[in-house]
């Protein structure tokens, strides 16, 4: 059972880290700001999300587990709001957009 758990954790953390990497590469490779916002939110949502779920079994207490989950929820809110704000700002202020 614990072996199974370890395998699942490894897969989750590995995929999460992969999403971070993909997000960074997207940030570098995508041609304009809007597509870069898209790349970024993958890292926030999926990358950190999978990492958090993978790390949850390591928590020593339920409070700690909640703390870890809260980190993810906060980052989700922050990233979605800032993605919206930046896109909105670009839309309003770019002359030809």
């Amino acid at each position, binding site marked *: 059972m614990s072996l199974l758990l370890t395998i699942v954790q490894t897969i989750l953390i590995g995929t999460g880290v992969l999403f*971070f990497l993909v997000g960074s590469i997207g940030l570098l490779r995508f041609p304009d*700001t809007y597509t870069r916002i898209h790349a970024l939110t993958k890292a926030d949502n999926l990358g950190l999300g999978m990492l958090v779920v993978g790390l949850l079994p390591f928590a020593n207490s339920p409070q700690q587990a909640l703390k870890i989950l809260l980190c993810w929820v906060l980052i989700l809110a922050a990233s979605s709001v800032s993605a919206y704000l930046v896109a909105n700002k670009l839309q309003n202020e770019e002359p030809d957009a």
Partner: protein
Amino acid sequence: MADFLTIAAIVLLISLLLGLIRVWRGPGAADRMLAAQLFGTTGVGIVLLLAVITDNGALFDIALVLSLLAAVAILAFVRRLKLQQSAADASSLSTKNDTAANKKEGQ
């Protein structure tokens, strides 16, 4: 498992440092700010990993504080700076990158 987590932390750090390139190259102010946002998120991920690796519960608080304040810099950017002015600023400075930035922003 600890080794695996360490490798995961190193990969996260690498992806973070890749973001530095975007901060440097820009071209627009928004691109730089987005890269900084990625730094915040990845930083939270690394701190969480370090907390588990070193088995130190106090580090979760640091991750919590980082994620609480993740949006502050971008809020300041959105509310206090104008995009066009960055173009004006850049033209007076006349570095190669920034003139390229102007072209791109103008498109």
